[in-house]
């Protein structure tokens, strides 16, 4: 990998955005790459905005990147994906779950947010894949595994990491009772990805 690949993971606290970035990091090291992730954790950020940076390359030092530097945006929620969009470079690819969690600030103002409108906002980017990740995760019996579905789609589209390493990374990071359904959710995402359908 000659240049550093930057991945932004946008989510609402509690959705598993940090787990997703951790799996990417573990898989990258298994594949022999250098990796850094940047995130802030610890404060009760459940239901708050969470952005996580992942950088993979031959030699990576900085844990974060700036606006317009992301090659991929992995979004677990639509509002947060729209918020994170400026991080994506013009040639970048957004892979986003069609999940909508309306922030309290919007409800208090009686502001209406809709899945189709937010999706359209994201589609203005040349390459955006909207994934019914929550439904797919429910279908494999683990509603919390939408992050693994997105990981699968990313795997299919990017081919950045080896599938063997990603699967092993999932097993190193995800607690054993959720492991089987997580791997299945990952497989479903892989199958859903445009390249997986070929």
């Amino acid at each position: 990998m000659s240049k550093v690949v930057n991945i932004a993971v946008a989510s609402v606290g509690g959705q598993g955005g940090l787990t997703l970035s951790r799996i990417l990091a573990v898989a990258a090291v298994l594949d022999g790459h250098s990796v850094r992730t940047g995130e802030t954790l610890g404060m009760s950020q459940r239901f708050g905005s969470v952005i996580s940076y992942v950088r993979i390359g031959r030699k990576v030092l900085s844990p974060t990147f700036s606006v317009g530097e992301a090659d991929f945006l992995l979004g677990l929620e639509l509002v947060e994906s729209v918020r994170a969009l400026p991080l994506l470079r013009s040639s970048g690819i957004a892979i986003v779950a069609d999940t909508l969690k309306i922030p309290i600030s919007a409800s208090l103002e009686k502001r209406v947010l809709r899945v189709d409108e937010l999706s359209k906002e994201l589609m203005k980017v040349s390459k955006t894949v909207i994934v019914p990740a929550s439904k797919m995760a429910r279908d494999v019996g683990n509603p919390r595994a939408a992050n693994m579905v997105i990981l699968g789609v990313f795997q299919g589209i990017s081919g950045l990491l080896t599938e063997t390493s990603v699967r092993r990374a999932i097993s190193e990071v995800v607690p054993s009772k959720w492991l089987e359904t997580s791997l299945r959710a990952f497989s479903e995402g892989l199958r859903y990805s445009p390249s997986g359908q070929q």
Partner: protein
Amino acid sequence: MFNPLKAPEGVKTALMGNEAIARGFVEAGVSVVVGYPGTPSSEVIASLHEYGVSSEIYVEWAVNERVAFEIAYGAAIVGARAAATMKAPGASVALDPMVSSAYGGVEGGLVVLVADDPGPHTTQTEQDNRWLGFLAKLPVVTPSSPQEAKDLAVSAFDMSEELKLPVILRTTTRVNHTVGEVLLGQVRPPKRVSGFRKDVPRFVRAGMAWNLERHRWLDKQLNIAEEVFDRVSRVRNIVEGSGRFCIVTEGSAYNYVREVVDEVGVEARVVKLSLLFPPPRRFLAEAVEGCTDVLVIEELDPYLELVVKSLLSELGVSTRVFGKVSGHIPLEGELNRGLVREAIASLVSGAPSGTPKETQSKPIPGVPSRPPPMCPGCPHRSMYVAMLIGVSKAGYKRGEVPVFGDIGCYALASQPPLEAIWTEHSMGASISMAMGAKVAGFEGPVIAVIGDSTFYHAGIQPLIEAVHKRVDILVVVADNSVVAMTGHQSTPAWPALESGRRAKPVAIEDLLRAIGVDHVEVVDPYDVDRMVSAFERLIRQPGVKVLVSKHPCALLEARSRSVRRYRVVEDKCTGCLACIRVTGCPAMSYNGEKVVISSDDCAGCGLCARFCPYGAIEVVGSE
């Protein structure tokens, strides 16, 4: 799951900086690790608990940072290798014993992890604890990556033992919470007590002549610190590249510097320090020799900048030094690649500036903000709702009764719609600051809100003060039986600890009665009506009243019992939003016509149903 503490030497894996530090402590043969939870430091002890360590190693949360440091210090003077962990303000709580420890010194290595937070992301100030070096006269070392964090955690012990001084391992968020590849090293057996030789002049700070003598000893040790660091540390002070344009940096800032210098291709000599105090004068003098311009790139205060300027002035060299004082690097906030690129571009002709122009969209206007709220079912929310109603039932306007907050999840009530607290200052300050308002002559009632762990940490003495001085004050202890905000650590009320050790619970109610509080009442905030009437009554009552709002953290409760969930009956909902305006619960939202409750998120507290004027919210399955 992979266990980074038990994996053998030579394994390379992705670790978070704090996990790497935990591994480093184990590799160094630590036998006592104590700390108080605080972001971004908590995962060191949390990892030691999660992955498990030998029973030879004592790993526990202490009641506060001062106690944690003193336990570690006591262990170190009897020959054990010990560590204390804390966030930036925690270092101030531990400062008194830390300063004295420099005079007594240690026998076993003692490493104090102090995690600063440029940004700040989760800390009340951008306190720069590198100054602890000058203030406490203790060596300070800093890593720039998870690998260096692990290696320095080991080397800091070796350095501490050789110098016989506690060593401060000072980190920043972007090291503590960064995941990166780490090559694991050899684990040494835990170094426990070796004996305690009585040495009164060394360990008794009551003798002023002894203290002067020990101060001289301390300065001698600091004089050899650079030489010891060079000899024992696996992470070195380094010079990369050459040229007359020099950049002096340390820690996280180095990562941005190295990448930007390589990317833009400027000729620069990069000097990276890992020993921050005492400043490595011999190394630095050599490293900056021949530089015409020095740019100091660092986060928080212009610490290194002043060190470099003072050294150059001593050397009689008139090199120009740029940095925070000259305005090339911002004084506030954390650095990033873009800011570093701009600073270099402003000094080196031809270097490209700013961020890449490939940005495809500006921030999209009107994306609604999503600050961290209290969770669905949070007992604090019910308590605050009852408080605000109780205040008005007692005959006061909301704006007439100041609510002094404290540090913890319950400070999230500063956000709309509750906007309940007026201050959030430092651990324990709610009670003393409310007392301050009263003794200054504030006539109306005042309320202090403090969490259970914060009460144990620093609330007990303020309460003694308030009782003793007969102040009229209502104190709410928001007791959810856990240190919730930092990730659910144990409190002194727990009968069994994360480590598996059994403990003797220290009950808050017993403490309150022992202190002599005039009126103690314990109410479950889920019983909103009882809570409202308690507030209404206690606000008007004279004396020191403590209302313990007792209900387990909703996140933990959901794990231990099945929760009933609520739903909105569409026919009855008018979309008036009373439920959302009262509670601000993030499980609820407005879809343009009605309110919707997310079944994934509802924790079943029922607060929304209590405040729906149309009876449109009911328990799922009750229809």
